[in-house]
């Protein structure tokens, strides 16, 4: 990421098995540094899977870390649908 720019919001489209609880997944993401809030909504229900939309907001989100957590929770990331970045405030 460019120096002085931080990721403030990311929206991920993902596919998870029914067995994985969205509460567990959202808490696991939220516990990470630089993240203020996580919301997950179920978009579509299938026989074995659910399509979910994960919205993460924070001061300085590490997208790679989020990807790792999501994969650890047996969930496949299909696409990154929204990104919001902002210049970091410099203190002199």
């Amino acid at each position, binding site marked *: 990421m460019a120096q002085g720019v931080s990721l403030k919001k990311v929206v991920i489209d993902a*596919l998870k098995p029914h*067995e994985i609880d969205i509460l567990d997944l959202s808490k696991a993401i939220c516990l990470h540094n630089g993240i203020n809030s996580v919301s997950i909504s179920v978009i579509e229900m*299938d026989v074995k*899977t659910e399509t979910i939309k994960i919205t993460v907001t924070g001061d300085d989100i590490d997208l790679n870390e989020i990807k790792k957590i999501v994969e650890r*929770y*047996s969930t*496949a990331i299909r696409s990154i649908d929204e990104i919001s970045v902002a210049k970091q405030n410099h203190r002199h």
Partner: protein
Amino acid sequence: MYTEISRIGEISRRYFVMNAFDGLLTIIGVIMGSFISGVDDVKIIIGTGVAASWAMGVSGFIGALITEQAERERKVKDIEKAILTELDGSILEKAEKFAVIVAALIDGLSPLLVSVISISPLFLSLYSLLSLYYSLALSLFLAIFLLFIIGLYLGKTAGGNLIYYGLIMTTSGILVAITSLFIGKV
């Protein structure tokens, strides 16, 4: 979390009841067989009971290990296909592996445990604290009592009539004991 993901709670309950039931009926068979054939050496009866319990334990452990592993590997592969991603090292894969071990342990330990408890009065006879006849009767009573307890547990799980489930289990034990008498005399 692993327990919820793998839904091992329900399967464990089923395995526990099924195998404890198997173990108790087998022990009733051993007790009745010893009684009918007039074995007067308690060491032989204890040896037979312990060996039968051990065999049931090993059989339960290995049987559940292999079948659960096959079933759960298949489940993980099905999910991998559905989400088009490998699940190696993920929480779901770990939860399923955990479930295999838990299921195998319960499947192995439940018949072993109830059988050993059932034949425990025979040790009183071994140390000459009780006559062989009474210790056999006490073992039989203990096995049937354990069947009743397992029935109560089943009834509680089903949220139904506890006594009804308890009596069904007890009746099956008594039936095995009575029919063993007839079969043994043939």
